[in-house]
């Protein structure tokens, strides 16, 4: 693995290897006195976030540090990006300064791919930490890891992905990964929040959350991406909550074994009620914890292998 840009670049075996490695890492660190591995000593990971993020950036930072890599965060306000430097120049600067891996979040879809092309001659690995409305592969992987831990095998399971699919890179990556791992995916969203090409996706589509909940093994709620909405996609937050919010009543429609996931940050009272978010059925904190192990696994497979000649 040279980069992690898209779930579409993985086959089922590669995805399972990443999940297995994450599980092993979790097990290795469990109950230890020292949560630090020497594996990536001498390697440098730079996180460059062109959009705000707490959990993803911190998760990569902890992952790198627990494997003894040197982790440097470049925040946009305090860097030359704020002065107008291009993504390409920033990337080449980081490579020249000795970065082994660049973790990038960018508002433009495809930015991580472009970065990987610009850095191809340098041997620097690129990890896509979210690009526009395109993909967020590590989020999908940590979601799959969380589901696998709770449900056992993912193959043959039916998973509902609910909410703002149109603007969600998490939904796109999850659809790719869950179907790759053999699950059936049902997208539940208002028609205005579904992408135009959804008919060609390998998924079912529904606009009726109540009707779907009884027959699924898990529900993945999405964040309503208000910052990406330039226009009215639904009449009001209240109406969205009534039609697509996960509340106590709807939780009772779910089979008992089915957990609830949310990539965060949660809009309580709109996408998910506090009663559900704070219940034992919601795996939000497990997702965050798994995120660290999963990102350790990604860094391990990108950086611990053979040096590029």
């Amino acid at each position, binding site marked *: *693995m040279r980069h992690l840009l898209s779930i579409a670049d993985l086959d089922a075996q590669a995805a399972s290897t990443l999940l297995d*490695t994450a599980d092993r890492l979790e*097990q290795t660190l469990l109950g230890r*006195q020292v949560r630090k*591995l020497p594996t990536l000593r001498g390697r440098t990971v730079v996180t460059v976030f062109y959009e705000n993020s707490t959990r993803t950036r911190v998760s990569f930072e902890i992952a790198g540090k627990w494997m003894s890599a040197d982790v440097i965060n470049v925040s946009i306000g305090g860097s030359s990006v704020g002065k107008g430097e291009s993504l390409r120049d920033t990337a080449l600067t980081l490579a020249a300064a000795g970065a082994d891996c660049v973790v990038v979040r960018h508002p433009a879809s495809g930015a991580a791919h472009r970065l990987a092309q610009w850095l191809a001659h340098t041997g620097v690995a690129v990890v896509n930490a979210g690009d526009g409305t395109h993909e967020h592969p590590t989020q999908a992987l940590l979601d799959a890891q969380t589901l696998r831990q709770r449900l056992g095998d993912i193959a043959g399971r039916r998973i509902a992905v609910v909410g703002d699919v149109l603007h969600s890179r998490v939904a796109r990556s999850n659809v790719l990964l869950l179907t790759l791992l053999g699950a059936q995916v049902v997208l539940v969203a208002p028609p205005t929040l579904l992408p135009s090409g959804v008919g060609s996706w390998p998924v079912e589509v529904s606009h009726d959350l109540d009707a779907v909940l009884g027959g699924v093994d898990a529900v993945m709620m999405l964040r309503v991406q208000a910052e990406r909405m330039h226009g009215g996609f639904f009449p009001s937050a209240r109406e969205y909550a009534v039609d697509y919010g996960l509340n106590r009543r709807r939780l009772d429609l779910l089979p008992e074994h089915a957990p609830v996931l949310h990539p965060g940050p949660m809009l309580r009272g709109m996408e998910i009620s506090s009663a559900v978010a704070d219940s034992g059925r919601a795996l939000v904190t497990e997702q965050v914890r798994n995120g660290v192990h999963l990102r350790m696994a990604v860094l391990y*497979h990108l950086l611990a292998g*053979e040096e590029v000649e």
Partner: protein
Amino acid sequence: MAPRSARAGAAGSGERELLVEADVARTIARMAHQIIEKTALDAPDAPHVVLLGIPTRGAPLARRLSAKIAEFTGVTIPTGTLDVTLYRDDLRRRPARPLEPTSLPDGGLDDALVVLVDDVLFSGRTVRAALDALRDHGRPAAVQLAVLIDRGHRELPIRADYVGKNVPTARREEVWVRLTELDGADAVLLRRSEPDAAGAVPSADSPGDGPAGDAR
């Protein structure tokens, strides 16, 4: 006992069977006796002994040693596995390896007499990685090393406390330990690896398919 040469044919050309099934069983039984004697684990003031197998084949070996010790003394010694992949010093020289399980016995390793168990002792680098890994898991009172085969060619000042069999080898040769739990049968094979057209000696990296030992 049949002469070794008589067994060579059965293992295929270029391959010599160093130990057959009965030899492996006898060797493990002898190592169990040595561990009992040296650690006095059946004495009234016995130390807290833990057997930690290094994956892949050290893990079943540790379990077998524990079973033999229980058979001979009635004392049950806890076993665990310790994957050392994340501590290896050659990670950047080979493709990323899959991780093997690590599981420590309840009660941890603090103040225990930990016996590390591996199939083959070669350069000593795996054992060094294991010592580094142990340090992050606790503070054993003492650490000992048990190996089924010592094939020499050490690159570090490390020696085993319990050796099933010393096997003088050439560097180019490979020692393959086969265990019923993973390979369907017990055997120890010596193979001579031929250089390829470019003159490089082939190496196998995947546990289970490659030659045993710490230069894997």
